[in-house]
């Protein structure tokens, strides 16, 4: 191995130092430049635009949304930046109008600090648990320590026993015996002290530790649940109570309620028709009859009302009248599938005329604009008509 010359060492050292100085100087320039140069107005507008939520979109920033509202909001942000307003003032402007919801990244609420710090707490607890476990595993897992202390203790006991024999047989002086006794006793006590407690104690302790762990876990779960519920409800806590201002879904309104409303507003035909249809569907034909008749008195051009009136009276045993009403329905609304089905069915069952019923029913089945429930009834009726004709 040849030693480098003094000159060579020095020049390479200087080069290296120079390189390091230059690199760090450049780095410092960049960092200082980045940190101290004020952001341009465009930067600020774009940045604010990314922090504000578009109120008419699904979780989108106003900077990213093409919607008119988002563009108008961007324009307002631009104006305010131009006027020299601070980011905080501009954000506050929108928060005052839309609530904190408008901020895509809402400020940390002190109430939920614990919630946010839970992952960190979990991590720390986990690391501590693993570290402890590992340490215990190594001390437990190293049988040398246990064996050593045991051996030392036994050895010391043996020495002590031997010592007393030697003393009895006057092989050593009492003085030396006292010295050695003290030494061996000390060794024995030290070994005893180092010896780990028995497994029994160990198990007891670990069980109580597990119990404590569980108790803590359950407590933590409880706290998390309560906090999550609170966190989520904060937005809604001021939510208005929904009042029933005629906005109840119609499906929840009972027949009796609707009947009362119809009675109060006797001239609103569509409402009465809806009520009649409800009775019709519930097979309450007498109630349906009354309302269908009233509907048709108010508006004789209701094809559906004529057809269902027909079916209603058929159910009440008036076949001829039923036939007449269903015919009226088809006059008002030719080709109405439901009316044709009733007509076919009245032929088939009312007049026992399968020959007349079949082509009518097959005509409906061949069409494409027939609702599935009517199609099902038509196909059933066709099967019956065919079997009747076979007999």
């Amino acid at each position, binding site marked *: 191995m040849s030693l480098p010359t003094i000159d060579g060492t020095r020049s390479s050292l200087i080069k290296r130092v120079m390189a390091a100085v230059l690199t760090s100087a450049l780095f410092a320039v960049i960092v200082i430049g980045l940190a101290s140069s004020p952001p341009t107005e465009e930067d600020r507008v774009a940045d604010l635009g990314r922090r504000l939520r578009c109120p*008419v979109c699904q979780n989108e920033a106003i900077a990213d949304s093409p919607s008119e*509202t988002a563009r108008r909001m961007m324009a307002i942000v631009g104006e305010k930046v131009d006027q020299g307003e601070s980011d905080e003032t501009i954000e506050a402007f929108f*928060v005052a*109008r839309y609530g904190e919801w408008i901020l895509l990244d809402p400020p940390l609420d002190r109430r939920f600090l614990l919630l946010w710090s839970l992952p960190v707490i979990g991590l720390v607890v986990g690391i501590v648990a693993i570290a402890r476990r590992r340490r215990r595993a190594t001390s437990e897992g190293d049988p040398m320590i246990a064996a050593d202390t045991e051996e030392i203790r036994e050895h010391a006991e043996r020495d002590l026993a031997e010592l007393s024999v030697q003393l009895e047989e006057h092989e050593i002086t009492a003085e030396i015996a006292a010295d050695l006794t003290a030494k061996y006793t000390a060794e024995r006590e030290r070994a005893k002290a180092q010896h780990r407690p028995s497994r029994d104690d160990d198990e007891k302790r670990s069980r109580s530790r597990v119990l404590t762990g569980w108790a803590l876990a359950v407590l933590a779960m409880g706290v998390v649940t309560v906090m*999550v519920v609170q966190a*989520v409800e904060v*937005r*809604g806590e001021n939510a208005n109570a929904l009042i029933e201002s005629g906005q109840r879904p119609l499906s929840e309104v009972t027949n009796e309620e609707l009947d009362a409303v119809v009675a109060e507003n006797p001239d609103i035909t569509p409402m009465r028709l809806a009520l009649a249809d409800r009775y019709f569907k519930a097979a309450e034909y007498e109630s349906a009859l009354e309302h269908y008749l009233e509907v048709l008195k108010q508006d004789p051009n209701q094809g559906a009302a004529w057809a269902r009136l027909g079916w209603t009276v058929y159910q009440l045993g008036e076949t001829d009248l039923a036939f007449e009403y269903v015919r009226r329905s088809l006059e008002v609304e030719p080709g109405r599938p439901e009316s044709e089905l009733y007509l076919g069915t009245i032929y088939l069952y009312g007049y026992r005329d399968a020959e007349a019923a079949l082509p009518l029913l097959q005509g409906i089945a061949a069409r494409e604009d027939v609702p599935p429930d009517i199609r099902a009834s038509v196909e059933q009726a066709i099967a019956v008509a065919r079997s009747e004709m076979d007999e």
Partner: protein
Amino acid sequence: MTEPDRPKLRSRARVIRWAVIVAAAGAVVMAFVFGDRFGVDPGQVESPLIGQPAPDVSMRLLDGSAEIGFQDLRGSVVVVNFFASWCIPCRYEHDDLQAVQTEYGDDGVVVLGVVYQDSSANINRMLDELGRGYQVVTDPESRTAIEFGVFGIPETFFLDREGRIAAKVFGEANWDALTSIIEPLLSGEDAESITTGTVQPSPGE
């Protein structure tokens, strides 16, 4: 050494199993909590503007004849209704808004329609069809809408006689909802905001 090892392995498997159970239970709880709140419209939350003075904006009447601001309407209970021709519930509430202007006009109620992102031509066509029972102003840059924190339409705000934003109807307004707010405001009492349904954020939705 094999003997003591076995129970240790078993207990580790038990710990993992319990951890999985706890995690799953946690996930279920979270799902329930969030699922319950899902679909709650942000606009259903009480507007932070309730109790604040009406914004200082100047709006041009639909016919272009004059500009008005909310300051000009001080002393009246003002019903500020954001609407557009592309908004279906807006059409339904139009009659009741006209009725309010007719019935309560003498008591000092002013209904003011604010056009929300729609052309004057469309609005004129709509009003020709449905009637011009109250004043309508345009809001070409959505400035008034943003001042009121509008999420979608229809949204209707109510100003008390002192010019403060006193209440809001989120969703389609109707006679009962409108009068349940107007009546107390006329007698100088507080009114409760109401949510009747959802709003339409833009023509396509």
